[in-house]
């Protein structure tokens, strides 16, 4: 069965420092991977999807099939990046990881 693992429950990063939120997956096929974000008191929303290969709010994520990873990265953290981030994989349904809470320190 496909699975998504986010090893960090909480990640604290100073403003201006690089951010990397880790995501590893297990899947026997060509995965479709996503990052969803939930800001405080807001709804869960899509941040980016790997097939788009786009940068959203300065975040990028590269699918590494060799390492089965889809880490989310941003070179310079901003305070407004503080949120809950969920990695997700899609087969016939979307399966979410348990999430990582990103806390940007001033």
């Amino acid at each position, binding site marked *: 069965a496909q699975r998504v693992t986010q090893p960090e429950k909480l990640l604290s990063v100073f403003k201006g420092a690089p951010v990397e939120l880790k995501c590893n997956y297990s899947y026997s096929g060509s995965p479709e991977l996503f990052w969803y974000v939930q800001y405080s008191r807001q*709804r*869960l929303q899509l941040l980016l999807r790997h097939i788009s290969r786009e940068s959203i709010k300065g975040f990028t994520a590269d699918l590494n099939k060799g390492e089965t990873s889809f880490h989310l990265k941003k070179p310079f953290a901003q305070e407004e990046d503080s949120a809950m981030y*969920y990695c997700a994989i899609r087969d016939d*349904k979307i399966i*979410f990881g348990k999430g990582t809470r990103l806390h940007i320190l001033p």
Partner: protein
Amino acid sequence: DAMVIQNPRYQVTQFGKPVTLSCSQTLNHNVMYWYQQKSSQAPKLLFHYYDKDFNNEADTPDNFQSRRPNTSFCFLDIRSPGLGDAAMYLCATSRAGMGEETQYFGPGTRLLVL
């Protein structure tokens, strides 16, 4: 703005008393989902409707039912809520079959069972 709406935002019910959570959408999406999210856990899919076709997850308890009377509305019925059913319930929609699989989430309904 087109969106996914969930009512109420907070629902308190008693142990064993049936409760219904509502979701509506103005996106005209053909797929609607219900997720359960407990504290510090990932959202867990309960079931979804692909148009009128109901798809139940294998591990969704029989206590949970759903209705979709039309494209815009979907309901989650919990027949006999237990204390373990207290959670955030998320509704989501997507436009499957059109190359766009992004899910759009509502704000959620937090259910408290007394």
